[in-house]
């Protein structure tokens, strides 16, 4: 926990003076050589090749396939759906987990421990299980509908096979990670600051707005980037719970490659999604670097 706390607050600091000379520096380089080689050889190189392949047409180089993708109403509807779904689900999960993290920060005792454990529970449940569970629970004539009918509510319309289905699963699935990152971030907020504000008569909302939010801004950004990227490339949840169309990009890509056997179009879809992911990823890295810089 404490490592994570330091990571998310950007407080990880090596020894003040680096003593990396000669053999020690070589040892350090040797340690990163293998992961770097894997990164270059197994990720970056194939990625570059794939990007190259998407613009290599039969007789020339051109962006025709991208023009086709962006000109196709169906592909664009899928892309828009994917972005909206990722954004709304990630923000909802973030808001809920911030609430849980706040509660955990200022409470102690058995109930707090239980809530903490419960909020981490989804971390250990695979997507395929949560998808099936939600089909049985929220599906037509499922447990939830039966319970509602017991108390006289009969207008229930199942979210199964609608955009709400994957949304609920994404929110549930993505609670634990931000809870961990945000509770870590909140431990960095000093009790003194909060108490001082209270003594001066600040109300809870004001404390939230002026002390807690600014001081956990980085944790929030990091948590958001992590879950947004996870949802952006999701496959199982939208496949099992979502509507036939629009499709999320993960499902669309798989179908284009596997069923339509059209690797060219699937690669274009992958590059577009990757470009969006790298914007958010770059944002995440910038936040991390800035937080390290701030400590210097």
């Amino acid at each position: 926990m404490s490592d994570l706390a330091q990571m998310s607050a950007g407080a990880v600091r090596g020894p003040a003076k680096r003593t990396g000379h000669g053999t020690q520096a070589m040892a350090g380089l040797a340690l990163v050589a293998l992961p770097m080689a894997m990164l270059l050889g197994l990720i970056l190189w194939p990625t570059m090749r794939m990007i190259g392949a998407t613009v290599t047409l039969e007789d020339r180089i051109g962006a025709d396939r991208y023009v086709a993708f962006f000109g196709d109403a169906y592909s664009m509807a899928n892309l828009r759906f994917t972005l909206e779904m990722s954004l709304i689900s990630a923000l909802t999960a973030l808001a809920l987990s911030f609430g849980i993290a706040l509660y955990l920060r200022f409470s102690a005792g058995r109930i707090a421990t239980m809530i903490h454990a419960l909020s981490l529970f989804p971390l250990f449940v695979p997507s395929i299980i949560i998808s099936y569970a939600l089909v049985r629970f929220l599906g037509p004539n499922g447990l939830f509908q039966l319970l509602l009918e017991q108390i006289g509510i009969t207008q229930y319309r199942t979210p199964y096979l609608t955009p709400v289905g994957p949304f609920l699963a994404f929110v549930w699935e993505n609670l634990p990670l931000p809870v961990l990152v945000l509770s870590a971030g909140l431990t960095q907020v000093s009790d003194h600051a909060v108490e001082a504000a209270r003594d001066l008569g600040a109300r809870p909302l004001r404390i939230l707005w002026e002390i807690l939010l600014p001081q956990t801004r980085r944790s929030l950004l990091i948590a958001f980037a992590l879950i947004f990227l996870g949802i952006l490339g999701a496959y199982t949840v939208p496949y099992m719970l979502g509507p036939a169309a629009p499709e999320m990009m993960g499902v669309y890509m798989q179908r284009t490659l596997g069923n339509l056997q059209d690797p060219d179009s699937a690669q274009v879809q992958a590059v577009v999604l990757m470009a969006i992911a790298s914007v958010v990823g770059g944002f995440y890295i910038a936040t991390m670097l800035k937080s390290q810089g701030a400590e210097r």
Partner: protein
Amino acid sequence: MLSRRQFMATTAAVATLSATRLVAQDRKTLQVFIDGDTNISDWWNNILKPAFEAAHPTHTFNVTITRGVADGNGTIAARALAAMQSQTDPQVDYFEEIEPASVAGSVEAGLWLEVTEANVPNLKMINPAAIQTPIRMPYRGSQVLIAYDSAKIPTPPKTFADLVAWAKANPGRFTYGRPDKGGSGSNFVIRAIHEANGQDPAAFTKDNFDAAKAEEMLQKGWAILKDLHPFTFGEGTYPAGNTPALQLLAQGAVDMIPAWSDQALQAIKTGVLPETVKVVQLQDLALCGGFAYSAIPANATDLEGALALANFMLSPESQTSCVRDIGGFPGISWDNLPAELKAEYIDVIPVSIPTFPSGDWQTAKNDGWYKNVATNIVRD
């Protein structure tokens, strides 16, 4: 020191072991490879194996499941081909299901044993609906049917037009799976395409695909399905496969779906679907289906045993078991099966088993469905 009791126990164990070995050595073991679903491998192990052993005291078989491993039986067949070229033992005697043509070079190399009435006498009973070539033997089939809840629908539709009319009269009570995610939805979509093109499956062949012509023929099918779209479950949210569609029927969320014969019949038998669920085939033009083909590698070490197994599989007893135990269609014609079995399944016995070509037609059908039917994009 061994105590007397321990000594006796050990001796007895050793004796039993050698006795079992002797029995096993008495029988020759055929190596059968299966890459089909669990229902198929369970059927072979639990029902067919004891029956085969009882009928053939000299033989037994060992089932190896290759489902989900590399290319399944295709990979084993490629190895058998390599073994043929290096004249070694292929270690396989029988493929439960294989498409010889899809194993590159195997047909040209003569890997597959020709089966005829001379070496497999029961072939004379073969189902005329199955397309048989000398190197592959159809032995079980399945077809997409309409499964419906008879408690709510006393008289099910018998034609495609009736089905569409019923679905429109009962909004939200009919659905079908996405065509790329399972054969039940796929073959329903194909049936609509057939309907729109003169109910003529012969209009679609592997070699007659032409993008412009296909677009025109498919558009007529999309018109039917687009028209049906708002009346399906959830106003056009289609379940993602065969099982999710069956699940909706089982949960009472819909009253009618297209379903694979074997999956539906087995689900009714095991209670997964309520017993009021019945199945029916459309009588104007049936939904598509197909047969599973077995084949024997010509270099198998025990050809005699493999042929005996092939003949056993086409016996009326095994074929009755195929209908009763896995809900499959028989590879031999219904006339050779008990009359009461035929009477019981009269509603689902197809007059014909239409097919739809693989390759370009399938791709155009699946993508076209997503872009024209499932989508809610308004087109101008």
